[in-house]
């Protein structure tokens, strides 16, 4: 297996983007990544487009973006793994290089959710569980699925809605320093508590927004990477697992088994003690589609004991200077969750964190030079984890 490095990153502004089409917003990210790597479309061997779609009008996003970005007749494909599409697409591109088949691969995560109305998006994403047995008769929604976890978790560990809000407060705090974030306003626990319920016990401020956005990465094999840049960021390894389609078939509702499996796989591969991952990573992006998701990820990824997540958050241990700084870009909650772009956007953020070039105030101190990404598809239906490093594997 060949070593694979990230040599270029790009990210479009996340938000309600009525000013750009799917191809245009993708190109904002692609152009930035190509400019960073100082290469052109002619240097790309293949490209992978992470896009979930259905709310947006174009059914073949990979060919559309290939044409727009001057990549014809390069090979491009679309990858879909629900909200984990971004890391799934990156892993596909990684494997193209690791196998020796390609030298430079472009990864694009993109989503234009606001081409449909909010009730339609609620409909489409609510269908993203087990359609026939959960949606057809019972009208589940995306917040509803996570709310089932929130109810069980809160009752079990005596966690209050205020504790969930602390996650939103932190992510808005860091989002306020990220010019590419959907929400750049700080919020208080009181504001969060007074927001309306979307799926009791989850409120509007517990939820990531409906976001348009795009992110891009240029991956290169070792020999090429060293020619392109003197500060490549290396992809150390991957973890991955799936959960059941039916939420009723999960073993419990206080964590995601797929996250635990994907964490274990990754930690084993890269030599991280699963009991103390905080010792290895300077910064982490944990999938916070809802506040409860970030809390559960903290324990499922091994950072804290199950049931103690809210205490750690209350103690500000997930801020810079704490046990493990989490979601310093604002996370899905404040930066936004343009489904197919989300995982790619996490890696753009973590690459720039490790290169110490994000905005002051949200830059983690980089000591060991390792970063962790955790990307969940649906409600634990897919999970991908990845580790990045400054030092060569």
């Amino acid at each position, binding site marked *: 297996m060949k070593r694979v490095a990230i040599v270029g990153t790009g990210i479009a502004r996340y938000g309600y983007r*009525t000013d750009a089409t799917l191809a245009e917003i993708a190109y904002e990210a692609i152009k930035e990544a190509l400019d960073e790597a100082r290469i052109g479309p002619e240097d790309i061997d293949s490209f992978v487009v992470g896009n979930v779609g259905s709310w947006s009008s174009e059914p073949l996003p990979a060919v559309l973006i290939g044409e727009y970005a001057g990549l014809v007749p390069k090979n491009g494909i679309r990858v879909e793994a629900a909200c984990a599409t971004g890391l799934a697409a990156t892993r596909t591109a990684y494997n193209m290089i690791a196998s020796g088949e390609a030298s430079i691969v472009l990864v694009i995560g993109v989503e234009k959710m606001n081409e449909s109305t909010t009730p339609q998006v609620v409909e489409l994403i609510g269908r993203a569980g087990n359609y026939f047995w959960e949606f057809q008769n*019972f009208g589940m929604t995306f917040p509803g699925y996570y709310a089932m976890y929130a109810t*069980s978790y809160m009752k079990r560990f005596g966690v209050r809605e205020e504790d969930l809000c602390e996650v939103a407060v932190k992510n808005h705090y860091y989002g306020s320093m990220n010019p590419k974030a959907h929400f750049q306003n700080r919020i208080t626990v009181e504001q969060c508590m007074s927001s309306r319920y979307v799926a009791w016990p989850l409120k509007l401020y517990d939820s990531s927004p409906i976001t348009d956005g795009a992110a891009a990465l240029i991956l290169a094999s070792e020999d090429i990477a060293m020619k392109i840049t003197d500060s490549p960021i290396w992809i150390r390894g991957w973890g991955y697992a799936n959960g059941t389609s039916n939420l*009723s078939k999960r073993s419990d509702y206080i964590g995601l088994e797929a996250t635990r499996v994907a964490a274990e796989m990754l930690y084993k591969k890269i030599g991280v003690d699963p009991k103390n991952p905080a010792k290895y990573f300077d910064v982490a992006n944990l999938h916070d589609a809802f506040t409860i998701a970030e809390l559960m990820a903290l324990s499922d990824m091994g950072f804290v004991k199950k049931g103690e997540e809210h205490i750690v958050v209350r103690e500000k241990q997930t801020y810079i200077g704490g046990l493990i700084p989490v979601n310093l870009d604002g996370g899905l909650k404040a930066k936004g969750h343009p489904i197919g772009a989300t995982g790619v956007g996490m890696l753009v953020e973590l690459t720039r964190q490790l290169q110490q070039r994000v905005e002051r105030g949200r830059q983690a101190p980089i000591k060991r030079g390792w970063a962790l990404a955790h990307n969940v598809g649906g409600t634990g239906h897919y999970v991908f984890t990845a580790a990045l490093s400054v030092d060569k594997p």
Partner: protein
Amino acid sequence: MSDDKTIIKKLPEHIDRLSEEALSLIDNIVRETGLPIYQDPKTGAPMWLDVRELRLRYVIPVKNIEEFFKGLRNGVVRTTKCKECGTIYFPPQPDCPKCRVRNMEWIDIDGEGELLTWTVINVKPLSFSHLKDYIVGIVRMPQGFNILAWINVDSHEKLAPGMKMRLKVGRRDPEGYITYWFEPI
């Protein structure tokens, strides 16, 4: 909504009513300006309204689980049990992936379940927008599997983990077709 219709007719009528006003406005814009372009109310950006609406209504095979629906007509929820290894599958399915055979028997689901978790759907999908907030829960059945369904109770505050639940079958108002739900015992 008139009650002689089921959800099959009611829902498209309801959804059409929701967009009627907005579509009339755009219709006027097309007549006046020649194009279906309007200004986004939040950003003022020019937006093209898709002229070709995509309506999807899937047809889903139920041949291999027809017993389930026959059961509903008779007021019982049934599911499949592998005759080889005894594994019970809910939702029902004709194949046992453990034995890699198709040799199921149908069993009635009965007894008291225990509530594991629940939520209230406050913000509803478009195709459920004709309904008041509804409660969905997951219940552990004594035969060792879980069922997700609505819980018929007037407030979520009356619910607690472990609460005993009974499965009910009937025509659900106001939709008019047979399904199943839970009621506290």
